[in-house]
């Protein structure tokens, strides 16, 4: 009897894993089939207004890159503060708040940026979108930096100090270098996460059918356009949405796998 229960239980558990994998396969197969059948290299050459995706892909990459440019230095220095300088209550308060912010609804971040940037500046803009993504990214970078620095042995810091290096030299030359791989992986995963975000961009950057590098106006976004296209009645728009989703997913998965590969190689 005990053995039977055991068998049933184990069977159910394996079944669950099978269901999970089946969903993954289902989503990926759908995406590849629909995406590939609508995929064409001309999508990379034409803008949305001409039926292509060029401006959207470039726009999304610019938004995410700009967000990283803002978010990575801020997140890293804040993480350094928590792990290396912070003492007692304040540092752990910041750590807790950052943890909460990491799980804050992304649409709320969008609404926040809408209120503090879009409304005062009179319209949606690339800057607003990038800042919304940066706010999403900061707590993730803080979390990675904090936990990766905490893995650096205390002795390594002491050895630097014992040689007569000042604290910030030790942090920059030794501690960060020692934690480099972990931090880089974390940042890559954070980048993969924000590049696939839609909700924070809906009313900050919005999207645009045209190629644009002007960050002061509505900015082309792949994800926001996917949402628009997918809701349009024409079959052709939806096919374009699938092709765009396929490209987006490939980008996200490549970045993700690169991150994992780096860590694994290091080990």
């Amino acid at each position: 009897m005990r053995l039977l229960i055991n068998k049933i239980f184990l069977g159910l558990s394996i079944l669950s894993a099978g269901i999970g994998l089946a969903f993954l396969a289902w989503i990926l197969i759908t995406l590849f089939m629909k995406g590939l059948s609508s995929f064409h290299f001309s999508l990379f050459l034409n803008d949305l207004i001409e039926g292509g995706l060029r401006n959207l892909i470039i726009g999304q990459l610019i938004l995410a890159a700009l967000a990283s440019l803002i978010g990575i230095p801020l997140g890293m220095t804040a993480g350094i503060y928590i792990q290396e300088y912070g003492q007692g209550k304040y540092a752990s308060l910041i750590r807790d708040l950052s943890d909460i912010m990491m799980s804050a609804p992304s649409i709320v971040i969008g609404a926040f940026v809408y209120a503090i940037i879009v409304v005062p500046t009179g319209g949606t803009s690339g800057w607003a979108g990038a800042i919304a993504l940066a706010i999403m990214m900061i707590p993730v970078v803080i979390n990675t930096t904090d936990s990766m620095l905490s893995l650096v042995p205390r002795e390594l810091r002491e050895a630097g100090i014992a040689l007569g290096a000042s604290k910030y030299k030790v942090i920059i030359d030794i501690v960060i270098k020692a934690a480099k791989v972990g931090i880089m992986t974390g940042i890559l995963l954070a980048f993969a996460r924000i590049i696939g975000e839609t909700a924070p961009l809906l009313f900050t950057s919005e999207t645009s059918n045209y190629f644009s590098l002007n960050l002061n106006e509505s900015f082309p976004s792949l994800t926001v356009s996917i949402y628009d296209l997918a809701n349009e009645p024409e079959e052709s728009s939806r096919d374009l949405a699938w092709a765009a989703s396929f490209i987006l997913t490939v980008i996200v998965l490549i970045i993700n796998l690169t991150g994992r590969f780096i860590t694994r190689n290091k080990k």
Partner: protein
Amino acid sequence: MEKIFQKLSLASATLVFVLLVGIFLTLYSAAKPAIDEFGLGFITNPEWNKEVVVPTAQDTANRAEALNSDDDAITDEDDVMIADEDDEIADEDEMLLDDEDESVTKTIYGGLVPIVGTLLSTLIALVFALPIAMGIAVFLAEIAPKNISNIVGIAIELLAAIPSIIFGMWGLYYFAPIVAGIVGGYQVSLLTAGLVLGVMILPFMAAITRDSMNTTPAVLKESAYALGATKFEVIKDIIFPYSKVGIIGSIILALGRALGETMAVAFLIGSIFVLPKAINDPTISIPVAMANNFGEASGLGESALFYLALILFIISFAVISLAKFYFLKKAK
């Protein structure tokens, strides 16, 4: 130099605090007009963007007289009258200036529908994802051989990395028709939205539950096996009790994710401000209400959306804090 660097890092850390407080204050001040207008009754009011007649000054005077003479003559204040079908947001001041119109109208907003939609879709997601996620976690932590566990683990984590908008599209065009075919009713509904949301939080929930289970010391498991316990008994009697707090924390954290999810739900929930009567009726959730109405809204309507955002922010703040600071801290 040392000082500058230290100050700089302190400033960045403080930015987190400023941002979080800033988000709260900004949402609050943007929601202030709606909060002043509707108060806490907003939460229980099922009407959204509905024009109602407000009594004019003369009406009020008449009613005051009526109140004095006869109680029965009072019109029930809760009984709101629909002025017209026009969806345009009425500007109250403009209407007051309009001397021809005797019955002045105003637009009211209530948050009950999206709040209920958010809670119910999350609940469905949880009911659907919980058993499967637990099964996957047990499989990864205890059953699968190490190499299989690693591969499946990576696959599950990749599923977690897929952008939520993809889940929404897949859900709308491929998953919902099948669900509707089985259950009946609309393809866009609370049920399909909840299920797709469940699929979306599944990998996240499974991954962090597995991590919690992995904290069980090997010695503990080995001593149970040494007594002749089966795998099921070890999992039930040793691993679950040991990592219980961490598992609960993981579940609540996944719940926090589900509450704030926009895109996976936006494709499927139907986006109409109507309370669902059945599980396969369409309705709306807070993030979806924001996503689909922010662009067009202005004035009080926009403020009401900020009110919703504030409510969502507070709920998820509370849920996440509970998970992180009660359960997950305790688990450590």
